[in-house]
């Protein structure tokens, strides 16, 4: 028996005894949480650490993730913005690379590093006041995201994304953590109830009919005028020429 084997065996025995004797705080739940953190760390090492550092401390290419909270991770991975495909002015929404289970594990790992905004649960946004939601959205969000939530341009190639694909959870997370250039709307400025009102406005608006027929991306009178004047007039001119030829 070599010296190394002895060391390994002894370590195994000590570890085993410790594991048996160690106080088990919250029993199974704590254990699954630990497992999730461990699994999340493995996923983090494989998929994220090349930019964000081996311990999420950040680097030249990516910010530190210590203290960003589980909500930020869930938002970035859940909307597919991370992992980044290529470095541009801003990350774009893609099909997520991870399953929700994996995302939860990575979120658990990041959340274990330092406290931060948690993933919201039970978002009963239908209770939100619709009218208040509209007013809040107009006052705080519409400047960038456009009043129908269709998105808009910012400076130097950045843009406020369209909100038509975002889930209520992602909207809530975005307001809480302020991903990329979006400002953070803390609970003191927009309370959780008001956040739900905003979400209700956005979700309700999706199912609204377009009174004029085609919505044209709901981007407003400029798009409508453009279509009317180019497509409409061209069609009429074409029709006139056709009539002139045929009859």
């Amino acid at each position, binding site marked *: 028996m070599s010296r190394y084997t002895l060391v390994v065996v002894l370590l195994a025995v000590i570890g085993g005894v410790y594991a048996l004797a160690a106080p088990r705080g919250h029993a199974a739940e704590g254990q699954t949480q630990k497992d999730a953190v461990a699994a999340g760390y493995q996923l983090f090492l494989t998929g994220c650490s090349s930019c964000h550092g081996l311990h999420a401390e950040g680097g030249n290419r990516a910010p530190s993730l210590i203290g960003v909270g589980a909500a930020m991770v869930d938002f970035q991975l859940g909307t597919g913005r991370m992992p980044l495909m290529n470095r541009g002015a801003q990350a774009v929404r893609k099909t997520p690379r991870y399953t929700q289970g994996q995302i939860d594990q990575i979120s658990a790992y990041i959340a274990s590093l330092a406290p931060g905004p948690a993933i919201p649960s039970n978002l009963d946004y239908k209770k939100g006041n619709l009218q208040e939601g509209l007013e809040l959205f107009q006052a705080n969000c519409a400047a960038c995201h456009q009043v129908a939530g269709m998105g808009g341009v910012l400076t130097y190639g950045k843009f406020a994304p369209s909100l038509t694909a975002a889930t209520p959870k992602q909207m809530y997370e975005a307001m809480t953590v302020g991903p990329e250039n979006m400002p*953070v709307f803390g609970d003191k400025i927009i309370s959780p109830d008001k956040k739900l009102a905003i979400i209700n406005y956005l979700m309700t608006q999706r199912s609204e009919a377009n009174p004029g027929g085609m919505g044209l991306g709901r981007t407003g009178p400029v798009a409508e005028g453009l279509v009317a004047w180019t497509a409409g007039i061209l069609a009429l001119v074409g029709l006139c020429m056709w009539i002139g030829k045929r009859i």
Partner: protein
Amino acid sequence: MSSDEPRKPEDLGNQPPAAEEARLRRRPVRRQQETERHPEAARETESQRTRPWEEPEYTRPSHASEVTSEPQAEQVDAAAMLRAERAVTAMFLLSVLGTALFCFGFVFFSLHNSNYGQTLNLVIGAGLTISLFGLGAGFVMWAKKLMPHEDAVQEREPMHSLEEEELLTEELFLKGADELGIPRRKLLRRTALLALGIFPIPIVFALRDMGPLPGKKLYHSGWRKGVRLVDLDTQQPIKVGDLPVGGYATVMPEGFGSVNEFPTGPTMLIRLPPGVNQPAKGREDWAVGGHVAYNKICTHAGCPVGLYEQQTHHLLCPCHQSTFDVPRACKVIFGPAGHPLPQLPIYVDKDGYFRAQSDFHVPPGPSFFWRKSKTPAGEQEAKKA
């Protein structure tokens, strides 16, 4: 040959008396005056005229001078004519149906159904389209199929006036001036010029009466020393810690009542990450921690500058893309704005609430004509930076 008959191009050269008559009829006034003053002129014959511009050199071409006509198939073939008639009738009946559809839609589809009138819009829109299309197509087909086809050549009238007319005008003008005695009657000329010259002055008074002058209002926003910063929406005073890093709030002076009373009052309270703010000279104590307050009204056209980018710390105006660099005293880095956003000096009271140290040191809101170009300490440094 009567003058009513359209003339052919070959008539243009040799000017029969009828054509000359018609030409003179186009200036009836002049002709009449001439006849009154010089009765002998009326008796003048063609050969006696001495003034060269009255020589009949040119006559305006008449309209529709050349017409060729070909019979249509429908005019020759009775069966074809019947078919064409039926087609036109069908178009008019289609129009009737469209009109009926419009009326039907209005009666049977409510504006207040669940679709916000979408069905109504669709039905009356389709009705009107069909109705107008049927009418238009019917008339076009009628003209095209059942009327004789004519190729008409119409010559354009010359763009310039006839030389004789120009000379006559000149003559008339000089004669008029002479009869008025403008060169001789100095007093009349001068008083007329005086009267005409001062006539536009009342416009100045009318413009002045368009509203009360803004007075000092343009210089003040409603902020004053010691007033607390309250959220525009909730009207709650804002404490240190309410804003997370990277967050902002639109604030107003406490007790502002209505934004309309203080249109340049809305101010952005932004919390920058530690160490980001680079205060301009003379403004070192205007911020609290990372909290800076800048007026929200664009200095270009007065739009609310609400687009804050928390990573690049830019404030973007949605109207004309003026971009302000928040950590560097909201210097304009892009767009048409001419001045940085005015900074509101703030402090924190012993209870932790944000308060204003004073009003803005420069006039907030869009620039105006008599805004002093010489700016107080701070803004100039911000411009240079």
